């Protein structure tokens, strides 16, 4: 019989020592900045950026009372749900396609990575250029093909601008979902499908009863990460519209940037940031807990 390891102080401390570097890194790069934001949210901050002491919930009440905040929060929710939802569906479908054996599969997979590998600011600038009324590539193409005679304004209303921004967001998010789903798909044992085929299951039955349940953990991780990334995404909206006109395309992040650096209200901007952080914390927790619980069952 193997002897039990003697219980020493070293044994007790050892695991903590191993994870200490990660904890230190997390503390420096995550917890300290979050702490600064919280301190700022509860402080009176001058326009030049000096912290002048504790002011309780003043910044929060100013933000919540402002007429803009409701509109911006609504925009942020629409933006997050549509970008994350649609990119998850489309990314998963693309992963199913790329999981098939076909000629040029490697090249196709490489092409899918491109939108992900390019800087968001460049992506957004390219989209802005495509839809531009006066020089846009879309109008030029349609005119060359003889489909239109005069330039079309593709962004006649704020909603149209927002829709283009969402489309751009989906385009850059698809690769991440696609590759996470693809890694999940490739880990599924082919014998499940063989057994199902023997039992006479059709494609949809295999998709619903084998593929989806087994890919679900990968998609859950991708969705939670995407909710956080997309909710906090700044470059797309900022590059295309800066939240204009009249905050109709602002999300919480562009709104707080304007509050901080255009209006000089850094305390209120920090309060918006804290509100966003709490919303994300709650959403991500609920989603994680519910999906993982179902997985365990």
């Amino acid at each position: 019989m193997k002897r039990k390891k003697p219980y020493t102080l070293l044994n007790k401390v050892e695991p903590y020592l191993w994870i200490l570097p990660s904890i230190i890194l997390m503390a420096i790069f995550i917890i300290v900045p979050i702490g600064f934001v919280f301190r700022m949210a509860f402080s009176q901050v001058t326009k030049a950026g000096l912290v002048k002491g504790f002011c309780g919930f003043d910044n929060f009440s100013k933000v919540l009372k402002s007429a803009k905040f409701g509109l911006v929060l609504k925009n942020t929710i629409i933006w997050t749900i549509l970008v994350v939802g649609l990119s998850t569906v489309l990314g998963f479908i693309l992963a199913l396609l790329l999981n098939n054996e076909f000629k040029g599969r490697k090249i196709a997979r490489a092409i899918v990575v491109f939108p992900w590998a390019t800087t968001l600011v460049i992506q957004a600038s390219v989209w802005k250029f495509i839809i531009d009324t006066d020089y846009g590539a879309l109008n030029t193409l349609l005119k060359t093909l003889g489909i239109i005679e005069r330039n079309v304004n593709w962004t006649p209303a704020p909603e149209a601008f927002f829709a283009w921004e969402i489309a751009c967001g989906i385009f850059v998010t698809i690769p991440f979902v696609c590759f996470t789903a693809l890694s999940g798909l490739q880990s599924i044992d082919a014998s499940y499908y063989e057994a199902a085929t023997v039992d006479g299951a059709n494609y949809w039955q295999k998709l619903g009863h084998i593929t989806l349940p087994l890919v679900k953990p990968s998609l859950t991780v991708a969705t939670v990460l995407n909710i956080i990334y997309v909710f906090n995404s700044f470059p797309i909206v900022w590059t295309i519209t800066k939240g204009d006109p009249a905050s109709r395309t602002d999300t919480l992040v562009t709104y707080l940037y304007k509050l901080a650096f255009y209006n000089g209200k850094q305390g209120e901007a920090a309060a918006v940031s804290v509100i966003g952080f709490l919303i994300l914390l709650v959403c991500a927790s609920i989603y994680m807990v519910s999906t993982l619980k179902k997985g365990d069952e």
Partner: protein
Amino acid sequence: MKKLIAMLLVLTMVLALAACGGSKTAETQAPAAEAPAETQAPAASAADGEKVTVTMIAAQYGPKTGDWWTEFEKKFEAANDGIDLVVDCVSWNDIYTVVNTRIANGQAPDLLNIDVFADFQADGLLLPAEEWCSAETYAKFYQAFLDQSEIDGTIWAVPDLASARAMYYNKDILDAAGVEVPTTWEELTAACEAIQAYDPDIYPWGIDMTTDEGQAAFAYYTWGNGGGFVDDNDEWALNSAENVAAVEYAVGLVKAGLTNSDPATNTRYDLQDLFCAGKLAMMIAPNALSSQAGEAGVNYGFAAIPNNSGTSVSAGVMDRIMCFDNGQTAEQMAAITAVVDAFYDDEPYAEWVLMEGFLPATSAGGEACAAADPAMGAWIDIVGSAKFYPTAKAEWADVKQGVIDVEQQALLGGNVQELLDALQAEIAG
């Protein structure tokens, strides 16, 4: 034994990380976007040997600004042995973030070149101009420019350059459409309609109501209608009848389809590109458009901004240089004065202003610029009669964003009177 070695390695790694962490924290607290790390040292403690260090943040006006300042640093240091001048040239996109972060971390520069100053003054961060600007240099500035930086009877910053706005027009388009250069709002509307009838693919009039510079549009039309941001007593008067009519007129031009397609997102730079491509007939722009349009081969002219009150008012924009109170010693103050004197020395100053394509803020600079470029003469007269934004008032940042929001809401169909009433109530209480 192996375990002991592993433990020692872990401990070493932890200590190394902790050591790195210390400096990283300092960096994350001061993410000066484009500022090199060594320039973040506060002036007071940045003695390099026996040299006195002067730190400065300069706004990047154009692609050549950074090189110009590097050259200035070299020449200045060669002429002033005991002074180490460190200039950070920061783009307009980042400068507010960089400056605020450095102030928040107690690392304010000695000298700052930016547009606004009132917020820094309100926090007691600035030194009066006469404490760091020599009498000789101080006497060079146009008094009207100095007055723009006055709070409670003290001048807190000196102007570095200015720009004024005028109406640019494409002579060829106006001739082809058979219209004269408009001087009043009525003539402007008629000219726009004639140009539209001549060629529906040309935008007759350019309007920028974006977050970038929407406050300029507010200034052009309200000043041209006898209104403005403040009344005669320098009190906010945003919802005056003249202002309401002015915004309604500008929005009316957009609604009538006489302007660029989307004034809420087309910036002045977009409009200048359209103008240079011959797709826009008229727009209000600074003198910098002359060289751009000239290079593009546009047959352009410029004239006073059309108005509705009988008096044309040009909108002036002025940037400043200010000095932060970092508890400098007498020696450091002398070094700062030397830097300012060297910058405003007539010849290099005129060269800098001409290179940037702006207008000088000193009379000697004005004469030198006019001698070097005859077209400048007309502009120097325009800037002399220009009105400026009320940037010395503490609420300016809110007013600026507020009027832009009013314009954009009006474009979406909002009631101008109600919007301006609400803004006035918010600002003036």
